[in-house]
């Protein structure tokens, strides 16, 4: 799939960045305004999905490849687990740090919550985008395989 018409591509070019920006805002301000890591992550993923739909799978590879999605998926999850473990070392699993709680309403407040939000946002965004790519790129056996650049990941694993 080479992408959609010129109009769609142009509008996507304009809009995608804003969607991604909005996603980032939702993630970062999750502890102050509605939203949070999950909603923001899904928005980030949908910005990427929009790009894929408009420009085709080949193009998306240059922005965020499938391999990168898988790595950031794992990394986000690990960071969130580490937040929990850091609390564990400080006394209780997922303890928030009282000294870092900060004043209500500031971006740097609520201790570990923004960090967790960020980790979840990255994880969810990357994970959903990865699944979308995998679903979208899946072809029946026997079809031409030239259109599936990134799913080679699975096959390289099998070969090595």
């Amino acid at each position, binding site marked *: 799939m080479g992408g959609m018409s010129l109009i769609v591509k142009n509008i996507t070019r304009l809009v995608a960045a804003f969607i991604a920006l909005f996603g980032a805002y939702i993630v970062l301000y999750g502890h*102050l*305004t*509605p939203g*949070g890591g*999950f909603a923001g992550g*899904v928005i980030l993923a949908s910005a990427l999905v929009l790009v894929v739909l408009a420009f085709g799978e080949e193009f998306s590879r240059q922005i965020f490849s499938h391999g990168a999605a898988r790595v950031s998926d794992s990394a986000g999850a690990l960071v969130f687990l580490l937040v929990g473990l850091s609390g564990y070392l400080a006394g209780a699993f997922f303890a928030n740090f009282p000294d870092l709680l900060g004043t*209500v*309403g500031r971006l740097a407040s609520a201790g570990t919550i923004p960090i967790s939000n960020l980790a979840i946002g990255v994880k*969810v965004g990357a994970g*959903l985008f990865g*699944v979308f790519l*995998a*679903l979208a790129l*899946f072809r*029946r*056996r026997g079809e031409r395989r030239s259109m599936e650049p990134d799913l080679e990941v699975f096959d390289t694993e099998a070969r090595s």
Partner: protein
Amino acid sequence: MTLEMMPYLLAFVLLVIGLYAIVAKRNVIKVIVGLVIIQYATNLFLILVGYRRLAGEGAPVVPILTGPVSEAGRLAEQAVDPLPQALILTSIVIGLSVTALMVALAIRLYDRYGTFDTGRIRNLRG
């Protein structure tokens, strides 16, 4: 049976409709649709559980502090229950995950059997 119980009842009816779709329909996509419906019904039920009506008229109070900290006390008296909202957020995400996996399976089933008809996807029996 009071009017206050009607929303709960309708949420349950939605659940039943979704279950009906899952059991009675023979198309994989319809089964997925039914699954999405029962997830909606559960989320609906949970949000209904958390709602708190104000004594007077007016929209419910969102459990997010927008004003100064001094308003926290009023918020605690009036806002809707934030806990079911947290639970629904989790439940939405779980529903999304299950649906994603299911779509992946559906694609793969189509790949193997060449159809979405569960009547023809039937190797296993007994």
